[in-house]
């Protein structure tokens, strides 16, 4: 199934992803490695402590475009 055609973006979003022989977690690891190669992270090294997950997410936004 090399080419799929859709009448709308909604129809496209509902379609199952093309099947892959690669297990999803391996695909995840490979995809992350590709992203990290394209956009290396600049998060400061070490241990950081937060009162809440919201605080942790704000800190992440400061250092990330993701």
């Amino acid at each position: 199934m090399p080419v799929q055609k859709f009448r709308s973006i909604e129809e496209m979003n509902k379609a199952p992803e093309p099947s892959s022989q690669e297990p999803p977690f391996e695909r995840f690891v490979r995809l992350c490695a590709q992203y990290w190669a394209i956009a290396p992270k600049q998060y400061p090294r070490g241990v950081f402590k937060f009162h809440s997950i919201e605080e942790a997410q704000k800190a992440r936004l400061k250092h990330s475009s993701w």
Partner: protein
Amino acid sequence: MRVLRAFESAGLEYVLIGAAAMAFHGLVRATADLDFFIRATPENIERLRTALREAFQGDPEINTISSEDLLGEYPAVRYAPPTGNLYLDVLTRLGEAASFETVEAEIKDIDGTLVRVATPAALYQLKKGTVRLQDQADAAALRERFNLRDEK
């Protein structure tokens, strides 16, 4: 994988959430962080330090991850290892609603390493009420893929 193997080797009681957990369920997107709840006990936090030392060559920063913090004022701790792009978000609780004990999980086997992963329904519950756009997108993808419905 090195981190997940170290978790198993140390006997850490944890449950994987976030993008890595979604990947185990077939919803794959890139991320820079590994998010997980750990059981909030001093013994388990010592296992966490042991696992991280094994995975990251004894980085001395790991010694600053303390039970006092994770069991007290700081339920969220982020660890960015000396090298690489991945960082780890360790949680003992999320508000009053979620913790290691409350998040439904299943065991997945990846290359012989057993990984405790939040179920799609549990991930959906964690993500659906948040304000972060990425979480809302994740929640929508989980709802669609697994035909999840909100409880009344």
